[in-house]
């Protein structure tokens, strides 16, 4: 299996996805914005269809359109302060509406299905270069803004007092989310992409550790989820995206059960 070129490409991309997604996901989950991941992954579908229609690279199209939608969410936040969930509905309508209109027009120069469900066969060398560049820029930006991002998520008002430019960093963050999504759609697919952003973090949160350790465990769970999903989907001949999502849920359930058992054991011992 590992001797196939397409599989090597898929593993290369998967490793980057499994590092990038939880790095972004931890901030989304802790700010209770997990649904933004879902909305923007649907926005990426519109970007893909625009890319395919105009004979441009679909991942680049996804990144640009998703970045615009991410910035739009941030911009609309000022207008709908009391109805923030409405913003996601607006952006979701715009994205899905664009995607369906383009797909149904019959003007696509390629099939968009592989982007919906994820595919390991379609990863091209250009995609790999894009993934590498976007991932490196994203991880470097996250390292640079690490402390600011922690404070915006934990205590935004104190962050403002300490001089953090919250609005600007929120815009940068929405571009990072777009990058993570664009990088991941080839393998994971649009439909289950948000699971890659949220589930490894949800699993790591069960361990009750500090921020840095939670982030490290999120990456570990993410690598396990994606690589297991990739290998098993190959043998079972199913789409990697869906199977990776199932593995993410299974690992979360295992960790929840283990946690419950451990706490029961501890309470028995302490009696």
């Amino acid at each position, binding site marked *: 299996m590992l001797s196939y070129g397409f599989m090597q490409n898929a593993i290369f991309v998967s490793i980057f996805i499994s590092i990038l997604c939880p790095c972004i996901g931890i901030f989304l989950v802790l700010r209770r914005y997990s649904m933004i991941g879902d909305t923007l992954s649907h926005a990426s579908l519109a970007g893909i269809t625009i890319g395919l229609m105009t004979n441009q690279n679909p991942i680049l199209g996804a990144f640009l359109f998703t970045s615009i939608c991410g910035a739009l969410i941030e911009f609309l936040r000022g207008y709908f302060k009391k109805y923030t969930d409405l913003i996601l509905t607006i952006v979701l309508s715009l994205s899905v509406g664009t995607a369906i209109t383009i797909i149904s027009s019959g003007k696509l120069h390629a099939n968009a299905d592989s982007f919906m469900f994820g595919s390991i066969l379609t990863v091209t060398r250009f995609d790999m270069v894009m993934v590498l560049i976007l991932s490196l820029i994203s991880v470097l930006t996250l390292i640079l803004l*690490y402390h600011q991002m922690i404070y915006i998520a934990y205590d935004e008002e104190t962050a403002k*007092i300490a001089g953090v430019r919250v609005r600007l960093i929120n815009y940068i963050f929405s571009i990072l989310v777009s990058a993570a999504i664009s990088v991941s759609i080839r393998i994971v697919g649009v439909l289950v992409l948000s699971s890659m952003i949220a589930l490894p973090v949800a699993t790591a949160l069960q361990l009750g550790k*500090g921020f840095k350790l939670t982030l490290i465990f999120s990456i570990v769970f993410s690598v396990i989820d994606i690589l297991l999903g990739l290998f098993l989907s190959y043998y079972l001949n199913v789409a990697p995206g869906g199977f990776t999502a199932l593995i993410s849920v299974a690992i979360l359930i295992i960790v929840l059960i283990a946690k419950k058992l451990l706490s029961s054991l501890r309470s028995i011992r302490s009696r």
Partner: protein
Amino acid sequence: MIKAENLYFSYTGSPPYVLNGINLEIGGGEYISVVGENGSGKSTLMRLILKFIKPTRGNIITQVQRIGYVPQKNDFSNSNFPITVYEMLNSYRRLLKLKDKNMLMEKLGQVGMSDFTGALMGNLSGGQSQKILIARALMGNPDLLILDEPSTGVDIRSQKEIYGFLKKINKENGITIVSVEHNLDAAISNSTLIYHLTDGQGHLCTPRQYADEFLNMKGKVDNTHA
């Protein structure tokens, strides 16, 4: 240090105003408690001082080098947020661009919490987390410390320790303290001045004057009910 002139604020931008023509001047080294009923505009005034919001009319000037802020525990406290005391303080130190790493332990020592660096913020009691937040606010040696209801969710013993500490740093280090208070005993016992807000308007008085005002008000209410 803080000067408000003809200060009006309304969340809609038009009347009725939450703050209705406030004139206030706070000098350096004071310990001022801002008191008043719910909805009297205490927190709004504090948010204006912190520049979280802008006045609808009038102006407010805060001339300080650095402000330390202790939020109300229930306001932001994300008890499920996975962050240790060390991570929380160290990230704040980095935001303030303070190079001295020892400052973190020094401030924790001042509030008697040196042994808690590895503890998760969410696992601390109300009193413990309030002390940590005060330690954080003191990083960078602020000349103004603003607290939003510091005794909310804090047990009596910790309240005593916290107010004792605030009084000490006010007297010994000359840090100006502005504390939004619902704890009237604490306001009367610890403050050098009290700013009493009623229906968006306020006046400064000494703790003694405020205690008399309060007893008069209470007497009137008791007589009405009798």
